[in-house]
């Protein structure tokens, strides 16, 4: 069994807490949500999976807070990481301009 933990009910990603999750694996959700999500690709321990489709430029939510925005459309079950998410807030360069 491969598990992923959801830290807040409003999150659109879950963090895998088991190793070796391969494409086609059905990951069982834990924490603040139950259910399953089928992986569309390999995702390692500690990395995030999308719980639902996330449009390009939309917020990625973990801990109930925005951790970045997508740079491409993401489907449920896809790996959510630096290849499709960019930092959005809390950047000193952006803060100083505002």
């Amino acid at each position, binding site marked *: 069994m491969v598990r992923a933990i959801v*830290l807040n009910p409003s999150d659109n990603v879950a*963090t895998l807490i088991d190793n070796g999750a391969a494409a086609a694996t059905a990951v069982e959700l834990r924490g603040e949500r139950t259910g399953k999500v089928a992986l569309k690709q390999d995702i390692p321990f500690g*990395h995030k999976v999308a719980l639902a489709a996330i449009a390009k430029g939309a917020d990625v939510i973990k801990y109930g*807070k925005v951790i970045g925005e997508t740079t491409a459309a993401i489907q449920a079950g896809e790996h959510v990481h630096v290849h499709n998410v960019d*930092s959005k807030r*809390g950047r000193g360069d952006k803060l100083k301009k505002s």
Partner: protein
Amino acid sequence: MSDSFLGYRRPDGQVGVRNLIGVMSIMDNVNPVTRAISDNVAGSVPITTLFVRGQYGKDLEMSYNTLAGMGRNPNLAGVVIVGLERTSTNIVADRVRNTGKPVETVLIQELGGTVNATADGIRKAGKMAIAASKLRREKVPVSELILGLECGGSDTTSGLAGNPALGHATDLLIAAGGTAVVTETAEFMGAEEIFAEQAIDERVKKAFLKAVLDHEATAMQSGVDIRGANPVPDNIRGGLTTIEEKALGAMAKAGTTPLVDVLEYSEVPRKKGLHFMAGAAPAVESLTGLAAGGCQLCVFTTGVGNTIGNMIMPTAKISGNINTIRNFPDNIDFDVSDILEKDKAISTAGDELYEYILDIASGTVTTAEALKQQETAISRFGLTI
């Protein structure tokens, strides 16, 4: 949920969770005498320091304030302050005396050297230890507690289990009328605007953001860009995508209640509720600021393992990493690995942690105390002259 613990009521109304005699150096050149006195008095702890002599301006004031703050901490029933000469020693002694607790000084120049000073200090601290032993714990409300929040040796499990569980316990403590202090300014970088939304009003929000930007600017003056390289390649391999995510994992330990005020390093909260203290992240220095700021105890989350505690403020290590629980058991106080291993709810682990915090407050000893893994370090910024 419990709403009280057993503590020692002090003359100024504060409540201690320990009943120690502090033997404190006023500067580094008297540390051997401080240690010799404490070695010979049961129930005492040595509070040594580095520098002070030759410090000036902001650094000197921060050292004096921090030493005095440690002396005023209600976990100390009495304080013996060791100094070379009268003037500097009395500056700190006077700032502790206003608590009403016994304060004595040991002046090495006036006593004719270290042998006489050690004997004088043992006699004074010994009498204090006997007097303190006559005090008894009494039932006091949780609203008397100030909890320090710290993390170190963090890993993926810190953001998934340790810090969220501590955040839940912090929420319970504050709901019961208590106070918590989160520090380690650098850990907020990248999510400071998110945490700022937790501020109770505009003044606190601005003060918090200023504290983070000032910290960054100070580092920048030395040519160090703290924010630029985060998350580091290790973090990215571990699954952390953005600096916001990394910072959110760390700040989860602060819980969800409003941020009521912003404190300087070693400043004491004047309100109930969640506070932020500006300060460095390394644990010894950070814990010293929390203890000087009146925190009676601290919960310290760790992923891969960190051992250190504070001389006067019990510091409990909690971990959600099953490998650390198995391979590092001597230095871990509380296990929240069931969150990841057995699907225990974060809220359930947090409820249990809250009760454990009250146990420590009532006298349960932490590993850092039992094994004497304790140290003191005060922040400094400039050169000595």
